[in-house]
């Protein structure tokens, strides 16, 4: 069976752990014997700008990125960033969003306001929209930094990504040994957060 090339786009704000989340996905996809390409733009990320990574996987992947309207899954670590890049999704694509707000500078100084209707507006798009409280869950686990791993767990569960793979082993290998238990718990709780959602079959490339 030919495995169509799919595109996952991860976005968020510098420091939210996008690189780590994509590393987990990449490591797993390689173990599941996919061809994988990735593309990163992290120009001024350290200075609080937005960060974007694309992952593409299939039997034979040529391009490391796609343009607007061609992404299968958007994995957004922040609400405003979900909205900023939502138009990269295909119709019927999947949008997984961390329920977290990080105000940009213009909001901090009162020159603009943080949109209050993001969930409604994203929910109105022709996509499968899954807002999840990964940040809150991470706080509950005692370390807000694991929200990226929670999101990764949720995504893998939602789209049934390489579902015969031992993802726990992948997570374990990707994190520092002293944080192993915390990350595994985060990963499992991410899966748990979407337990009641039906597994999503991704839109086909054709």
């Amino acid at each position, binding site marked *: 069976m030919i495995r169509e090339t799919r595109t996952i786009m991860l976005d968020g704000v510098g420091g939210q752990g996008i690189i780590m989340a994509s590393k987990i996905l990449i490591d797993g996809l390689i173990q599941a014997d996919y061809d994988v390409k990735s593309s990163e733009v992290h120009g001024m990320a350290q200075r609080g700008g937005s960060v974007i990574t694309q992952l593409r996987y299939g039997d034979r992947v040529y391009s490391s990125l796609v343009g607007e309207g061609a992404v299968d899954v958007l994995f957004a670590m922040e609400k405003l960033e979900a909205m900023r890049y939502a138009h990269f999704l295909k119709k019927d694509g999947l949008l997984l969003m961390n329920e977290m707000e990080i105000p940009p*500078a213009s909001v901090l100084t009162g020159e603009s306001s943080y949109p209050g209707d993001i969930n409604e507006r994203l929910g109105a*798009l022709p996509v499968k929209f899954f807002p999840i409280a990964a940040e809150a869950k991470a706080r509950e686990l005692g370390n807000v930094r694991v929200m990226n791993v929670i999101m990764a767990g949720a995504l893998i569960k939602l789209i049934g990504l390489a579902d015969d793979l031992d993802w726990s082993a992948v997570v374990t290998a990707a994190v520092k040994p002293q944080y192993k238990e915390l990350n595994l718990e985060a990963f499992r709780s991410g899966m748990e957060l979407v337990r009641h959602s039906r597994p999503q079959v991704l839109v086909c490339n054709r």
Partner: protein
Amino acid sequence: MLTTKVMLTGNEAVARGAWEAGVGLGIGYPGTPSTEILEALSLKDGPEVCWAVNEKVALEEAYGAAVGGLRAIVTMKHVGLNVAADPLFITAYLGVNGGLVIAAADDPGMHSSQNEQDNRWYALHAKVPMLEPADSEECLRFTKLAFELSERYDVPILLRLVTRTSHAGGLVLLNEEMKYSRIKRDYVPSPRYVTLPGNSRARKKVLERNLAAIVEDESVQTLDLMEITSPEVGIITSGASYNYVKEVFGDSCSVLKLGLVYPLNVNRIREFAGMVRELVVVEELDPYLENNIKAMGIRCEGKKYITSFYELNPQIVAASLANTTLNIPFPSAGSRAEPAAPGPLPGVPARPALLCAGCPHRGFFYMAKKAKLMMTGDIGCYSLGAMPPLEAFEASICMGGGYTMAQGLSLTVPEGQKVFGVMGDSTFFHSGITGALEGIYNGRAFVPVVLDNRITAMTGHQQNPGTGRMMNGAPTLMQEPAVLFKAMGYDPVMQVGAYDLDAIRSAIQTAKMASGKAAIVVKAPCRLIRGVEGGSRRAVHQNQCQDCRLCLRLGCPAISLGEDGKPVIDALSCFGCGICQQVCRHESIYEVAEVRS
């Protein structure tokens, strides 16, 4: 052979290729998206790897190593090649001994650059053969071969990367049993290495002969891909653009992917053109291939369809070729799937990059704006000082230009006024020193300022002569910009702490009034350097605050407008630099006495 499949970025793959080729020296100057090549190489045992003070210096050093018989790789971003252009052109004439590879990374789309120049023209202009890999696997293979070609044809080789090869990850098979083995050729002294007109006249003939020969080289043939799958439309392309073409068209049209983009293999292109009815060139940025192919007398179209602006991707390629008279089917409709939205959703506030909370650059910019200085800036984190609300300088061009442009401007202002020029420490060492000297030499009404945060911050914290450490961490003499200013004849040279606004104010005042030539060094380490500690955090007395919002004019991401319309300071992101407390006129910002964890 024990092999493992790993994901490498293009930059890591170039480093691996150089290492497998037994490179003796890796040298360059940081610049996005090229920086990680040397960083990856420095993690490997064997070669000498270092940051040079600038790209010209790097290329000249590497050339010396190559003449002496070592293999050397030089890395830089696209504009770095402008700085290194002088030696680039000459080394092509003189020829190398050990292989010399210059990896220069373009940034189409200007993700992190001041322009998007297409460096393929440099190859043509400087007569330096250029290889263009499309993905990580090719980055490794092409780099390795580049060293052999350089030695075989006695020329440096340019390796052209773009953001989407440098920063793209792809799977590569590595031979785990490979060991590093440094290549060293004998050095035979020869007058040919001396650039004198007589030598160069003779060497130019050698160069042209070698350029003609490299095209015919058997291993170079393996760099091209000729895929004849249809007699209708044939696409000529190279590098990352090839990936986009294949993604969209698969095997539904014929493709010639060129691995050697200078000199062009005329016979190969002619042969391909003869096998298809229509010829299209798909390339990012300039019509480099297209113009050259047209000059061969071959009919083709390129920029008629494909934009020369910014970065391409499969969707842009598909859309550009969809509504044409070209007879091509679109097998991969995925590249033209229906979008979820017709365009970006409206009403999304931008998220521009900001100087960090506690950034040592902020205080000087705030005071400079207050003093209404006429000032030119430069390139680094401190470029953000031009953005609101700081808006402290009015112009910047290229690294080093912060000082020299100010001197030109000084000729246009009223007698008695001085123009300030500001740059960071790495930029000062890169090309600020010569400009500072110019200020003394020609007696300009100019004040040089160094924002010395003791690191090359913008590109991700590389060592430089001011850090007192070499790339590998080994100690070296720590350069002080103040000492260099004094040696040039600047007086007074004022060194002030970056978080001491009074000291900054009086340094600016003194510099404006000084009869001599003043220079200012503003100093504090970048707060992101490991081990750099902040002060105690600040907070706002909500009932004392007069709501003048001066503190918001610092553009500090830790300070925001609270619910009640008064500023609040975020306890987590405050670094405790304390400049907001100094700015506050109503003593409403105070130090929170607590032990930081």
